[in-house]
């Protein structure tokens, strides 16, 4: 693809922008959850009461999959000798795995 690196860069920064508020939200949630001593049922009860939570976490998962896959690819390219096409596929694979795992988890709280 023409200017692949630039588009990956844009996707990575874009996904980071999406992640930032979601991570803040998530940090809030864990702080709340761990300090409130909530039980699993209570947590799930809340997350399942509205579609907003699964939607937010769904978005988080998609953004994180894009963001982390691209990020890892860059790190591997720069810090190892692995820099050919196979790396691109590996990164893509990593992103997909992340996405699947993530969606499964989101499904659990939905």
């Amino acid at each position, binding site marked *: 693809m023409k200017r692949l690196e630039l588009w990956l860069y844009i996707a990575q920064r874009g996904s*980071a922008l999406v992640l930032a508020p979601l991570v*803040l939200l998530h940090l809030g949630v864990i702080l709340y959850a*761990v*300090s409130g001593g909530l039980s*699993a049922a209570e947590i799930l009860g809340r997350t399942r009461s509205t579609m907003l939570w699964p939607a937010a976490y769904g978005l988080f998962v998609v953004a994180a999959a894009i963001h982390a896959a691209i*990020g890892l690819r860059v790190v591997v390219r720069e810090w190892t000798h692995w820099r050919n096409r196979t790396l691109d596929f590996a990164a893509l694979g990593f992103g997909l795995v*992340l996405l699947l*795992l*993530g969606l499964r988890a989101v499904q*659990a709280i939905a």
Partner: protein
Amino acid sequence: MRNHASYRAFLVHRLSGLGLALFLPIHLIVLGLAVEASALDGFLRWSELPLVKAAETILVVLLALHMFGGLRLLAIELLPWSDRQKNWIGWAAAASLAVGAGFVIRTFA
């Protein structure tokens, strides 16, 4: 050559990013396993262990470091240049510490 704040900020950001990328799949597997509420309860109980708590704290700090560091980078790249950008490193570090401290206080208190 690398002995200055911006470079250290990069290293922290990269290592935290790596840490997160390696941890996130594990985290998601665990969560995914918790389709059953009981399994999640088990998980939560397991997460009461001090060692696990400590590990989680580190992860939360990593996440905070990476996020604030990332926001700093996004600000440098997307906003007009500011000569105060060097100070942002300090702010990002402080905010991450605050989050970490908050987490520690809330979990252990």
